């Protein structure tokens, strides 16, 4: 167990360092051989070739939030489902399975509600 996590820890460290190496190399390259040349236009925001205006404040629509909301609820649901999954059908009696189904049903009901309310409609 601790071996697994040790490996993961080291892997995490290496994975963090890994992208830094080429980025560092690229930085070195830019320092020595091919100087980066910033410029007004070059560093402007790309806008299909048009002159970019000020950075835009985009007002988003609420449906992004609604999707995230529904997702959150079902995500939590899967959190409770996973321990059952680890038990497997073999260890779950039919009655137990039915009670899980009840749990699911309550959530599916909310999905149906969301569907009917048009929350799943992208606007």
């Amino acid at each position: 167990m601790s071996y697994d996590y040790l490996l993961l820890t080291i892997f995490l460290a290496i994975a963090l360092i890994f992208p830094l190496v080429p980025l560092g190399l690229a930085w070195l390259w830019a320092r020595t051989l091919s100087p980066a040349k910033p410029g007004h236009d070059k560093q402007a925001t790309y806008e299909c070739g048009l002159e970019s205006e000020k950075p835009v404040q985009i007002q988003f629509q609420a449906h992004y939030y609604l999707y995230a909301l529904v997702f959150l609820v079902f995500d939590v649901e899967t959190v409770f489902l996973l321990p059952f999954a680890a038990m497997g059908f073999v260890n779950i009696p039919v009655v137990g399975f039915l009670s899980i189904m009840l749990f699911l049903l309550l959530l599916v009901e909310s999905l149906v509600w969301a569907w009917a309310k048009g929350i799943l409609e992208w606007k």
Partner: protein
Amino acid sequence: MHELFQKIIALPWDQAPQWLFLIPAFVMLMGAAAAVMLRNLIHCALCLTLSFIALGVLFMALGAEFVGFVQLLVYVGAVAMLILFAILLTPAGEVAASNNPLRNFKFSRAFAAAGGATVALLVLVSLLGAIFFSPHARAVVPPAQAAIAPVKAIGENLLNHTLLPLQATAILLTAALIGAALLAKEEKKS
């Protein structure tokens, strides 16, 4: 040289992983600190995410791997996104347009901030005092045990002992979904 090497490898390195949990703890605290201090809301939310990740890792390091992953899944995957979306949905651009000059008075805000900080500090001091110096702190604590929270056992526990809370959670979640959706849903324009 050789001896030094020998000495170094003879150190109790095997024990080291036990204390590795300090790394995520540190990251977590830094993240939380940044989340509280930074001005840019998105940065705050990102630091909060970092802090949550570290917290999840900390759970794992303490042997509660399932809870740790659940923390990652729920907080990083969903809650963080929810917070980010919420921030983007509520641009703070017009906040300054408060028409009450007193509200905008810097001094009052600084005062409030100082007060809040004092309260937080007091709480911290008393908590730390309780942890380290209260009589209970000297009570015998059983030694840390090997991680023992197999997912299967959690499942059995859920099925056998906490079935009712589980259904209650389902109802709660449904209610939360409906409530939040109704709140966040845009009213039809005319």
